[in-house]
């Protein structure tokens, strides 16, 4: 009696293993049959990041100045260091440099520019600029 039940248990275990193997084989064959033929074209997507330096923001006409910092504002704007980009506003501004080798950029207003004597300053001025002293005009706009 015990021998017969042990035999039955062994047979059902074998049957279960055979069924399991068959199921795995069928599943594998199905995925292989459907996925192998797919073709995915090459695509592009991405994100690019780069720090912005003051030299990159300076007008190309001021490349010789080698700008390292920026100062901006409206009214009276003074440089605080050499090799500085001094930016005016849309109003009437007075831009000045006391350290040398700066790039002063005026806006639409009747701006005044004052560089350092022998300091090698560069100025981007508007057509209505009021006065330009000790500064080489490298561009006129607007």
């Amino acid at each position, binding site marked *: 009696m015990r021998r017969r039940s042990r035999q039955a248990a062994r047979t059902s275990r074998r049957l279960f293993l055979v069924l399991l193997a068959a199921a795995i084989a069928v599943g594998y064959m199905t995925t292989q049959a459907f996925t192998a033929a797919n073709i995915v074209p090459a695509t592009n*997507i991405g994100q690019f990041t780069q*720090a912005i330096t003051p030299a990159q923001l300076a007008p190309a006409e001021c490349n010789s100045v080698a700008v390292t910092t920026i100062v901006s*504002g409206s009214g009276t704007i003074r440089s605080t260091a050499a090799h500085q980009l001094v930016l005016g506003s849309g109003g009437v501004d007075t831009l000045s440099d006391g350290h040398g080798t700066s790039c002063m950029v005026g806006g639409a207003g009747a701006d005044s520019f004052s560089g350092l004597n022998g300091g090698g300053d560069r100025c981007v001025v508007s057509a209505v600029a009021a006065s330009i002293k000790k500064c080489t005009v490298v561009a006129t*706009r607007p």
Partner: protein
Amino acid sequence: MRRRLFAISLVALAVLVGAVLGRAATATNTVPNGLVGQGSQAATPYAITAISYSLDVNNPSNVAQVSFTISPTTARVVKARLKNTGAWYACTNTAGSVTCATTSTAITAVTANNLTVVATQ
């Protein structure tokens, strides 16, 4: 005994009828051809070069635009921003030459510290 035999015969007949009906109903189904599958291909990033910035000619405290070249040149959607957590600006790509006007939300030259470009086809 005879009643029991009849009941068994009836159940067997019912199963047989059900099977025949089911077979008849399902055999006429037409299933169209379908495709399903999986595939993969690495997505490659774009190369951004020749970056240049322009200050606003009327108010030079603000940045007016950023321009650069992109490769591959087929990028359809390109956006840029000039500072982290700043506004995103829509860009125009003309055969790989990209221009992004930054005047919709003014950004000053002093605060522009990080260029981020996102692009997709």
